[in-house]
């Protein structure tokens, strides 16, 4: 993703002389072509992220289009108040790019993980939050972000992610991209975990569950039209993100859902636990350990579908059983006879 980003940024800078790149002393040689071609429009701001965001605001308020690039936790959490005041309060058109979303830098440990960035940034008024799902989406999302009138957070993976799209998709911020149509469940993935969601969809298909797989690249603003359709059509909607369960895409969907009249679909949230993942190892190992791999996602989705089917069956039985109607109001149903399902059994990952 980062190579695609660097190429797309140079292309954007060729088209638009207002584009300026600020980076926080990372990306060894990644921006050499940009620096060679764009001169002072490339600026290494050093290891000083609070200042870098302020500089971006000053450029944006002067009519330029700054793009700020560093590792996700340093691009966001480190300088959150500067993003809030300098960019969001002023609606300054700057693009903040966090490379290494989620566990892309798994081996470097929790200092370099970004599992709270979406939660933090999506609460900021006027902020747009976009997580492209592959390199093609990165290119399209950068163009769309540069055209926005206010600040945008663009969350990237790292490098070498599988391609999902064959060519650059038509990406509109705030509009979900359906990659694979389905009937039973919707898998809504945001960011670099998108290929994992596609694989989970294939596994579900093999198990007889038709899953729609969606690149839900924009966490803010939500594609409400798609959500209305999805929660009406499907038995379950599954949010998939390489981010804490607190505050990210899953939370955004849950908030959206409870503020509406009841819709038929059940929401299942897949994300990381409220804990630092300090085990080291690769991104794939971290994902597997935390239940963010295709097998776990498919298994939990399938288990939910089965529980929902069982309950539907029990509802149907109950409505045919006249004795149920004479039960005293509030009487406790017998164990295993249609009691609400407990916490999702897969939900307590370490």
């Amino acid at each position, binding site marked *: 993703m980062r190579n695609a980003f660097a190429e797309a940024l140079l292309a954007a800078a060729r088209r638009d002389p207002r584009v300026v790149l600020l980076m926080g002393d990372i990306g060894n040689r990644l921006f050499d072509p940009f620096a060679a071609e764009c001169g002072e429009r490339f600026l290494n701001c050093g290891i*000083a992220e*609070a200042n870098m965001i*302020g500089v971006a605001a000053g*450029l944006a308020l*002067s009519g330029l289009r700054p793009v700020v690039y560093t590792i996700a936790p340093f691009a966001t959490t480190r300088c959150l108040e500067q993003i809030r005041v300098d960019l969001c309060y002023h609606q300054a058109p700057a693009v903040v790019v966090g490379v290494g979303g989620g566990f892309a830098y798994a081996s470097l440990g929790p200092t370099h993980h970004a599992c709270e960035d979406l939660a933090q940034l999506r609460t900021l008024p006027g902020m747009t939050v976009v997580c492209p799902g592959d390199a093609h989406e990165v290119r399209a999302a950068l163009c769309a972000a540069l055209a926005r009138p206010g600040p945008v957070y663009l969350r990237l993976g790292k490098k070498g992610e599988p391609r999902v799209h064959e060519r650059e998709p038509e990406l509109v911020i705030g509009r979900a991209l359906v990659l694979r149509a389905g009937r039973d469940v919707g898998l809504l993935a945001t960011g670099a975990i998108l290929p994992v969601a596609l694989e989970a969809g294939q596994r579900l298909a093999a198990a007889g569950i038709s899953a729609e797989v969606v690149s839900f690249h924009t966490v803010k603003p939500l594609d409400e039209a798609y959500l209305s359709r999805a929660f009406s059509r499907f038995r379950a909607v599954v949010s998939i993100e390489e981010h804490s369960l607190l505050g990210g895409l899953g939370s955004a969907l849950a908030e959206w859902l409870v503020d509406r009249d009841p819709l038929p679909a059940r929401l299942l949230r897949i994300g990381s636990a409220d804990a630092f993942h300090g085990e080291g190892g690769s991104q794939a190992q971290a994902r597997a350990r935390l239940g963010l791999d295709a097998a776990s996602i498919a298994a939990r989705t399938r288990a939910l579908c089965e529980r929902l089917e069982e309950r539907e069956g029990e509802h149907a039985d109950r409505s045919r059983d006249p004795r149920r109607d004479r039960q005293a109001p509030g009487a406790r149903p017998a164990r295993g006879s249609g009691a609400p399902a407990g916490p999702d059994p897969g939900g307590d990952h370490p």
Partner: protein
Amino acid sequence: MRCQRTSARLASRAGAGAGPMAGDPERRREELEQRARRLRATLVEMSHRSGAPHLASGLSCVEILVAAYFEVLALDPRHPSDPERDRFLLSKGHAAAALYAALALRGFFPGSWLERYAQAGSPLPEQPAPGCVPGVELATGSLGHGLPVGLGMALAARLQGRPQRVFVLLGDGECNEGSVWEAALLAPARRLGNLAAIIDANRWQATARSEEVMALAPLRAKWEAFGWEALEVDGHDPVALARALARVPRSGGPGRPLAVIAHTVKGRGVSFMEDDNNWHYRIPTAPELAAARAELGFP
């Protein structure tokens, strides 16, 4: 070429054309000092009327604002969004009342607006909001934001080939913030000779003597060590301040950014407020307002 044409439009007394202190210097000094007294009288009244604090923080930077807005900045209040105007950022946003009073006096908006300062729905909030009135360049109030943003504006001027300068007013207490020193490290590396930091060194922060809280001294040597040209001036001498600020040239090339350490007295101009840090928060009563205005010559 564009710079020269714009300079004619952006008529300031000094910044773009005639040079600092054009005309009879004694008369100019008297005018500036009279404006400073008038601003102070307005400030005390604004605090009394609104119940808004930080009066003493405003009183300490009055001459800095007078020197900037009446001697140095290339600005035209009729064209407040001119892309080539000089920028003045009040990074110590809690002194907003002083900025508003200076902008009104300079003609950016009617002085009657000051009467609604810090009231609900007023265009003049207690701390500057984005674009709240013509002439306000940045929403501030959280400290340590102005210099990084000003650095970005100075860089933008260079990238766009524009002549403007950027002046950022900070408090000495504000220099506790790490982001100030992040910007202080970057500006000389980029040779931003069109950027100036003015430090209102009133030696107090909200609850204590600045020196007792953080080891700020020697402040001038710190800025010099960071690669800035640094000057110390009497922060209540508008002529000395104007001379210092005018060292930053419009349409200048790369060079060292300028730090002006303005030695000031918190609460300056009202005898019973001077150097008394209670007035960081206290609101003047009606008798105190009358006494202050009488001292300032605006009974």
